[in-house]
Each structure stands twice: as C-alpha cells, then as structure tokens.
C-alpha cells in the first residue's frame, strides 16, 4: 500500500494505474500491447495485494467483455490498450454504452493506421474515440498532458464513468505514457470518489433503465437480489427487449442526453495567457507541451499568443472555441494526426475566426520551433 501523500517519479502509464486504483478500480482485464503494456504489468504486480483482480484475457474483445462483467458484479473495472486493441473493442464499447455499465478504457495512442509504428507517439485515435462503434452513443474522452495530470484525469475518468453509468475513454499518447515525471500523489482517503447510483427502494419500483431524459438511473450489482436483465438490444425501463419506436427513441436519446445535457459539468479546459491574446493555440496531450514551449518563446518575441488546452476532448468543449471565435482570435490547432479535432474547432468557429490545422504524422512530437514557425507564418 502506498504512503498517504508522496511525490514519486512515475511513468505516465504508472500514474494512470495508480490513479485508477486510488479511484477505486479493483478489476483489471487486459491484453498486452505497446505502448500501454506497463499499465497491465503494474496491475499484475499490485492488484493481488490490495484485494483487486488482475486477469490477462485471450484478446482485447475478451478484455473489455471481462471488465463489463466485473463492473456488473459491482467492482470498478478498467482495461488499457492501444490502437489495434481499441479497434477490436469497439463492438463491446457500444455494448457498455447501451447497457450503461461504467468502465474505464485507456487507449495509449501510437502511430497508426494498422500496426503502424507501435512505439511512435500519435493523436490519431481522437475521432475514433467518438465514433468508433456503430450507432449513436454517448462519448466521454479525456486527454492529459503530463504525468501528474494523467493521475488526476484517471481519477476523474473513473468518477465520470460511475456518475454517468457509461464507459469513459482516457486518451493517452505514447509521449505522456512513457514519460517519467514527479507526481504528487494525494492522500487517497481525501480523494473525491464517485460511486455509481445504486437502487434504494425495493425490486418492484426499481427501473434500471428508467428516469427522465436527463437522469442516470440507478444500477444494482449482480448478487444484490434485484435480478435485472441487461441487453444490447433496445430495451424498456425494466430491461426487457422492445421493438417499440417510442421505447427506442426514448432510450437512444436518453443514453446520449444524460451526457450531453450535463456537458458543462463534464467539460474542462485550461487557458494560458488568453487574456490579451491576439492569436491562440488549441492543443491537448503531448502537443500542448510543445505548444506551451512555443507560446513562451513567442511571448518573448512580443507575440500575444494564448493557449486553450482542453482535457475533455469529448463531449467537445464548444464553449472554449466559442469564446475565442467570438473575440475573433485565430486558432492554430497542432495535432499529431492529419487534422481530427480541428474539424470540430472549425465547425464551432463557424467562420467567425480563422482556424489553421498543423499536422504531424511522422511519429515525432512537435518541436516548439515548428509551432512557433507556424504562429509566425500566420493564419
């Protein structure tokens, strides 16, 4: 067991694992894949002693199935993978959305598509995190920029997952996952943890998929005696399969609505030097590290540059863009992909300001210099 408060040199992957455990995760199922494997290895080592479960499954499909199972049994559960495994998990991610089973899925992004460059950093799975599974579904995805933030966002991810009864995706990138930095670990007893809503009344009045359009219905653990039915089919408030259009409409809209209506509670972003900014960088994850370096260099040159750094990628932080667009601040959006989140930035900017993507897909992190150059070039 770790000491109440401490500063430790940790790798991003370790901080993620530690954060999950501190957030109450006691069930890990996974399948090794670079560059996420350290999370599984950490869990294999640490889980048994703290009363948690670690299992290596036969593949990623089985891994996410197992964590949904673990969560149904009432235990906070997670898995960790990278692109190829994340693609394989898509069907069951949709299942977890549909059955409203909380769980955490960590995707440590690496160079894609396909096997790509397993050890190269990338931010190529951002849109997949939103749209990877078939059908309309809710989506929450967070992306940290430091090892410290990996810890805190993992805790937050687990909390959101419990609060909204939905899978949450932590989008790490290879840089942050393998980076070692000092992390100040808080007293785990003082962490604010969220527990999924559980039923209070009796079996008769219990509606595991009920409630208003904005509500998250309670969920009973298997074994509590509520004898619920979970199905990936469209189902009514009780959990019975249904072909009724009204039931279908209500279910799908509620699933998405419970997250969308509460987007302001979920979304978080940070602004650096935005007060007097005349142009801004919109960046997340490792790209924001290069960006803040570039920002400082630019400020030294007298350029009034700001940084908008969302930690919530989905739901998309529209307001962060709104504010800048309303002020007509042009936005540079550096991403380690061919331009993914910038599509959303452009959409929200809606012509009110210029939006310029900056793409890097050669398996290297942006250097501060190239972001600075882009800022100098203008929009």
């Amino acid at each position: 067991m770790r000491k109440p408060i401490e500063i430790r040199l940790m790798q991003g992957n370790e901080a993620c694992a530690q954060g999950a455990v501190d957030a109450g995760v006691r069930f890990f199922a996974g399948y090794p894949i670079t560059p996420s494997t350290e999370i599984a290895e950490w869990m294999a080592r640490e889980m048994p002693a703290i009363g948690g479960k670690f299992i290596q499954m036969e593949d990623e499909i089985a891994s996410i199935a197992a964590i949904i199972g673990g969560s149904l049994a009432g235990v906070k559960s997670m898995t960790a993978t990278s692109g190829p495994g994340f693609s394989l998990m898509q069907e069951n991610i949709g299942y977890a959305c549909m059955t409203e089973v909380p769980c955490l899925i960590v995707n440590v992004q690496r160079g894609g598509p396909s096997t790509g460059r397993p050890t190269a950093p990338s931010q190529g799975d951002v849109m997949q995190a939103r749209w990877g599974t078939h059908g309309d579904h809710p989506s929450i995805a967070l992306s940290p920029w430091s090892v410290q933030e990996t810890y805190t966002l993992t805790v937050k991810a687990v909390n959101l997952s419990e609060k909204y009864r939905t899978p949450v995706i932590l989008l790490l990138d290879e840089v942050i996952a393998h980076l070692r930095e000092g992390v100040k670990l808080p007293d785990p007893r003082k962490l604010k943890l969220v527990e999924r809503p559980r039923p209070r009344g009796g079996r008769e009045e219990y509606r595991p998929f009920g409630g208003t359009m904005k509500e998250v219905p309670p969920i009973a653990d298997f074994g509590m005696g509520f004898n619920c039915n979970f199905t990936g089919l469209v189902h009514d408030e009780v959990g019975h399969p249904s072909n009724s259009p009204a039931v279908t409409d209500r279910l799908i809209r509620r699933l998405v609505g419970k997250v969308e209506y509460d987007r302001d509670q979920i979304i978080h972003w940070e602004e650096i030097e935005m007060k007097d900014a005349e142009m801004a960088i919109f960046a997340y994850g490792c790209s924001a590290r290069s960006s803040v370096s570039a920002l400082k260099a630019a400020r030294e040159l007298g350029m009034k540059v700001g940084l908008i750094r969302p930690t919530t990628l989905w739901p998309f932080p529209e307001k962060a863009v709104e504010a800048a667009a309303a002020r007509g601040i042009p936005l540079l959006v550096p991403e380690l992909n061919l331009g993914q989140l910038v599509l959303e930035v452009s959409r929200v900017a809606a012509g009110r300001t210029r939006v310029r993507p900056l793409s890097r897909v050669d398996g290297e992190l942006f250097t501060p210099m190239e972001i600075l150059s882009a800022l100098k070039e203008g929009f």
Partner: protein
Amino acid sequence: MPGKNKKVRKWPDPVQIMLTGSGGQGLILAGIILAEAALKDGFHVAQTQAYGPEARGGASRAEVIIGSSPIDYPHVERPDILLALTQEACDKYIAEAAGDSAVITDSKLVPNSPKTTAAVSSLPIITTAREVGREVVANIVALGALNSVTGLVSWPSLEEAVLDRAPAGTAELNKKALAAGRGLAGPVSQ
C-alpha cells in the same frame, strides 16, 4: 541551472542530459536514477527513453531534463551533457550535442575520440565496473563519473536513488560502483 555542487559550471535551466550506448548497458535505469535523485533534490524532471526495435540489443538512449520549474517540452533538443558508452552512440549523438556541452565516454568502448568543441572526458568506466566486481554496474559507475563531472545532483540523493533501485543483495556492490565512478573524474570547470 543550480547544481548543488557549487564547484562546477552552471548549467542551463533546464539542463538536458542524454545517456547513450547499447541495450543491456542499463542506461535507462541510469536515467531513472538520475531523475529520481534530481527529484529528491527538489527539481522538476522529465525522463524519457528510446523505444522500438532499435532498443532491442542495438542502440539505447535515455534522456533526462532537470529544471527548477516545470519542464514544458519533454524531449532533449540539444544535450548539454552526453554520456556515450559505445562508439556507435558517440558518433551518432555527438552531432546533436551543444558546442559547449560536457561529453563523457568510455575509454575502452569509444576508442575514437569524437570531433567536437565540447569538453570530452574519456574515462575507464567499463574497466572500473569489472574491477568493482561485475560489468553490469557499469551504469552506476557511469552515473558516479557523470555526477563528478557535472555536479548535477547531491551525492546523498544520488546514492539514495541508486540504493532504491538496487536489486536485493546488491546494495554494497552498487555503493562501491558509485564511489568508484565518482573517483574517476573531477568537475569540469567553466
């Protein structure tokens, strides 16, 4: 960069260190230990390493950045301090090093001194490790030598960090290795 050892030159803040050689020489571990020592000294650190097939048997590279405030860009752009334990690594990375950097090489494994304006210390690291007992502690010897030359971190922190990571039963060996490395060189002055 405020090294605790006041006798040595002042490094930029943050200071960028690159440890290079071949897989199996334990350079990643050396990087982690150095980072941990710096953390103990109260610095901010960022430590990374090369992954990928090239890390398999072939070349190996660890990076450490140490600073008095949070590190933004986490990769070494231009090493201020370069350790090279193979000729291949030395030849490859010397070009990236800053002109006024400190370069530490193994005198046996890097027979051809690099062409550079940097201050090169060619030291018998591997040989010393063998003398201390086992070649596997070459990385600890190197750390001792490197800290002697650069004065990056305090010796108690470094020793503590070494011992934190030493496998059971090797504490003494590692202590000896660190001391031997420390003895190999003195600080480079400005």
